[in-house]
């Protein structure tokens, strides 16, 4: 089931604005123009393997996969 869509979340305090998420998944992450803090945009979901790459590459270890998106209200 590697094609599963999963939701992702950014922990703001850990974000250093490294921009890896926006580089890898510009449709899901956007950095703000001032302090470059990342937030999830659009549907906020992507296939699990791609989400894992973003988690792996985030320099602040600020991104996580939300295992139960229903519970947090995101429509996965």
């Amino acid at each position: 089931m590697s094609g599963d869509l999963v939701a992702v979340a950014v922990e703001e305090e850990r974000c250093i604005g490294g921009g890896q998420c926006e580089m890898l998944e510009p449709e899901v992450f956007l950095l703000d123009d001032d302090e470059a803090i990342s937030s999830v945009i659009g549907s906020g979901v992507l296939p699990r393997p791609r989400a894992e790459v973003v988690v792996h590459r985030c320099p602040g270890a600020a991104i996580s996969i939300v295992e139960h998106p229903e519970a947090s209200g995101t429509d996965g």
Partner: protein
Amino acid sequence: MSPTAVPAPILAPEIADPRLYLDGIPHERFARIRAIPGLAWHPYGDNGFWAVTRHADVRAVSRNPTVFSSAIGHTNLWDLEADALEARRSLIDTDAPDHTRLRRMVAGAFTPKNIRRWEDAVREITVELLDIFVAQGGGDWVDMVAAPLPIRVILAMLGVPVADAGYLVELSNYLVEGTGDTQSLPPDAFGNTTELRLLPFNSPASHALFEYGDEMRSKRRAEPRDDLVTHLVEAEAEGGRISRHEYRHLFHLLVFAGNETTRTAISHGAMALAANPDQWQRVLDDPELVEPATEEIIRWATPVLHMRRTAATDCELAGTPIAAGEKLVMWYGSANRDEAVFANPLRFDVGRRTSEHFAFGGGGPHLCLGAFLARLEVSVLLQEMAARRLFLEQLGEPVRVASNFVHGVLSVDMAPGGAS
């Protein structure tokens, strides 16, 4: 000191002597260290450091900043006295929360989206430099292309007048000397009166760069503009979100890092393309290869050779116990030739599909601020060279910098060759 309760660590072959790097990165020595189980210990000065050479270990150190600190000690392998450490501290030698605060001060300007806004400006400068290079039948590639391109771009971002680019390149060259054994400047150069050990790279050129930054600060205070210096000056004025010391050091770091590193990538990139015309032909045949070729050039060049961390607590890495206070030095040129990650690591291959090189750092919070800018500069240069079907022919050996910190090239003569 190395731990006592465990067997004595294996000693690494010499990799810190700056003169070794006059012949390029000693890849064969690094390959030997990578093959040593655990971490190898490298004597250095009165003490020594753990040589972190494998890709996976560089990543582990980079991504665990609470254990592997940038603020205890600093991020170069040589030692500093406590007062020098404070006097010289910049963004790169901080841990959270200071790091997060300072980084956010500048990060907005360097996001992928905001860096793309500079593409036209980068292209204009690139075209101008390449046209001169071709019209003059070549010359010193560093002086004609590799040095002016990045410095003119970072100065435009900071808001520094183009007329001063030459002066700032000169200062940057002197700073690089400070990472090797020789300093050609007298201690009082540029009117410096500060003790050299209190200045970044022990260089009086740092004094000149601080002075220049201060002058910019006064100008932008009087007359704000839409540039990075104004942004920082306003942050300083607004309830001290950034201190005067922090401003001076950020300005210094942006000029140095924005200039020296990308210049090195462009210099080694040109040499690699000249030595591998078949690889350049692949890029000409398939413009989609500009992006992987850019990454390969940056991996190949590895412009920054090391960063250091200091263990904040007793810990372990790769099965080797590490005592609080010990130094770990990450060797990016080694991680970037790690056979566990890169097939045929000593081959220059523009078609590699992995961008997981560590030239911009091992993926932790200090990950290079200017990475997207550097990528933009290298990729626009490749596009414009491709548009001219410009092959490079290297004339003679490069003059390299004797440094274990920057993989610098002072000059290398190139001539434009025709399309094949």
